[in-house]
């Protein structure tokens, strides 16, 4: 028995990646959930909005690097993030004005808006590929690790190392900041309160003089900022590829629905639930178990419950289970 080493191995391979991935999903799911709460449709273009924001940030990063500006030990992309957010805000406001507004004025059924968002998804997908191509792009620079596995080993004298990647730490820190600002905005400011009122009861909100156009505009701006941040954090942690971002749609929706669509706290909880289940179920537990089990009982195989390619299956299975037993999600979401 060697609980300490087991714990460190667990932290290194499960907890740190899970925390970072969960934070990325949570910020993505917040965007989906806000659109659902205020505009009342499932936005299929969200993954591609993330991809667009990230592509813009990558371009700005390259420009900054070209004129010799870096962010010291931190990734330069963080400096470029405001530019990416700005461009994405312009894009989504433009799309809203060109496309979604028409259907909103018509009071179209939500499912029509979903199909419209499929069209937007196609267009954005094409635009992103046009701008930046289809290749895998790594754009993280600066220090790669806060603590490397080797430093940790020499520091503590344990067999197992705990590596903390800079991008993982940044993801968690940024996520905390973003969520804090968002909740402060929704709960304390006048605009945030009117957004919540609009989400709870549209007619009542309109009666009390809330300007729906303003609410919708602010929602799109926040969603663009969230989507870009989530996309950049994911890209820093892993890498950027247009197609991968499109595929992120599934875990993000799963997170939003598991938490309860339309409920921001639910989106965050859902993000972590999905991330940790994906990581724990596809992780090969042998490394942890060898420290916990007596030698005679050591497992032969990898003790991997499912191969990593089935991670979609995991998020999906959780989604189905939650929907079957608690249809409005873990935290009470809306149902239309």
């Amino acid at each position, binding site marked *: 028995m060697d609980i300490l080493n087991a714990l460190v191995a667990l932290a290194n391979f499960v907890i740190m990646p899970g925390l970072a991935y969960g934070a990325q999903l949570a910020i993505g799911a917040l965007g989906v959930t806000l659109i659902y709460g205020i505009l009342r449709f499932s936005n299929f273009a969200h993954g591609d909005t993330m991809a667009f924001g990230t592509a813009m940030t990558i371009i700005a990063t390259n420009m900054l690097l070209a004129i010799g500006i870096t962010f010291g030990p931190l990734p330069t992309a963080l400096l470029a993030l405001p530019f990416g957010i700005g461009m994405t805000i312009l894009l989504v406001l433009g799309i809203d004005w060109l496309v979604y507004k028409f259907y909103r004025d018509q009071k179209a059924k939500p499912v029509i808006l979903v199909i419209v968002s499929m*069209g937007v*998804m*196609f267009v954005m997908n*094409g635009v992103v590929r*046009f701008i930046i191509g289809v290749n895998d792009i790594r754009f993280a620079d600066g220090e790669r690790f806060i603590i490397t596995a080797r430093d940790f080993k020499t520091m503590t004298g344990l067999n197992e190392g705990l590596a903390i990647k800079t991008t993982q730490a940044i993801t968690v820190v940024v996520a905390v900041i973003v969520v804090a600002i968002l909740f402060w905005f929704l709960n304390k400011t006048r605009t945030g309160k009117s957004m919540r009122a609009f989400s709870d009861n549209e007619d009542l909100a309109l009666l009390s003089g809330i300007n729906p156009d303003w609410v919708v505009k602010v929602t799109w701006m926040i969603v663009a900022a969230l989507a870009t941040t989530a996309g950049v954090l994911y890209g820093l942690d892993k890498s950027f590829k247009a197609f991968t971002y*499109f*595929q992120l749609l599934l875990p993000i929706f799963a997170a939003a629905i598991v938490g309860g669509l339309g409920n921001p706290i639910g989106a965050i909880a859902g993000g972590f639930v999905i991330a940790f289940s994906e990581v724990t179920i596809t992780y090969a537990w042998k490394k942890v178990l060898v420290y916990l089990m007596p030698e005679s009982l050591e497992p032969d195989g990898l003790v991997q419950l499912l*191969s990593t390619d089935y991670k*979609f299956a995991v998020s999906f299975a959780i989604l189905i289970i939650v929907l079957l037993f608690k249809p409005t999600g873990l935290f009470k979401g809306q149902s239309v």
Partner: protein
Amino acid sequence: MNPSLKNTALFSVLGVLILGTGIVQGWNTALLIVNMGLISAIMALGVNLQWGFAGLFNIGVMGFVALGGLATVLISMPPVGEAWAAGGLQVILGLIAGAATIAAAIFAQKRFAGRIRTFVTLGVLIAGFFIYRAVFDAGVDAVEAVNPAATGYLGGLGLPVLLAWPVGGLLAAGAAWIIGKTALGLRSDYLAIATLGIAEIIIAVLKNEDWLARGVKNVIGLPRPVAYEVDLQNDPGFVERAASLGLDPVTASTLYTKIGYGVLFLIVLLILLWLAQKALNSPWGRMMRAIRDNEVAAEAMGKDVTARHLQIFILGSAICGIAGAMMTTLDGQLTPGTYQPLRFTFLVWVMVIVGGSGNNFGAVLGGMLIWWLWVMVEPLGLGLMNILASGLPEGSSLRDTLIDGAAHMRLLTMGLILLLVLRFSPRGLIPER
């Protein structure tokens, strides 16, 4: 203009487009487009059944198409005797253990109540999972070890490949039944996410379960329902007939096989179209549309909405499965890595919306027209980009971007078409009557 005249005109436009492609780019290309267009039309027919008739929002088309492709392998490839001997039975036993676990868990759910229920269900699931993995993994390892470079899977049944088409439909229908049972009670956008997820899982299974259809190693050289070009070229009678038409044997043989496929596909399409038209105009079809337009009212009239939804979900998915089996037969290979949701799910949706949801002829027209466009956008886009870039100096980066960008024109064009049709003609080219 009266509707039937307009429809004839629309189909004539389609014909002219294909003829034009044949004259400009050669008949081989045109026939290739026609064949895939016919398959796309069948997929669109399936989605139209679900969305146009019943308002079910299924975006898991890709999964059912892939299951149809799997059926082609399972039916037409010769069985690998050695692999069956090595671990075939054990794989089957493992699968039975897995199915038994799920059945037992469902039984426990129904039989017990309260806290005991949770414990018993969880216990059954965990124990069952480990038994299943123990039996199944050993069998899979044995099967995959048999000549992994050439086979490494169980093979199929060695039956005629045409039989795979209905079987593909059945396989897709079976999957649709399971999905429908769990997910159809959900609201529309939950169903959408659920089907999207199922499709990804089906592709993941096809990619990873090498014992089933070799995974990403692909199954190639599937038997064909029409003659091989090489055999035709070696057949003196065929060469003579080709010569009498003024064609060289190579061209004649490629055209001959493509027309052969085309005729087979057309027969299937016409049968399905006839059935779909009959269904649409029957009391059953009217009931479906009544349910779509007002579920509460239909329920009040004593219609079993859930059962009807399940029924039409299965039927539509089966049609997608048939189309998938046909497509794999046409390709002659099963390549799980090429299934992408944009191409196999969302493109079919563009076909249905553009053609006119709720109208079978619209689905067929949309399927063929959008497929033509999907193929032609790249050459057309490249031409356009070359014109745009002609003023720019050779080697400038903008020029390169523009010309490289032509490859990504497809998605952009499809999205724009979908948005434009939804905005200006939301009922599609041939609207529902």
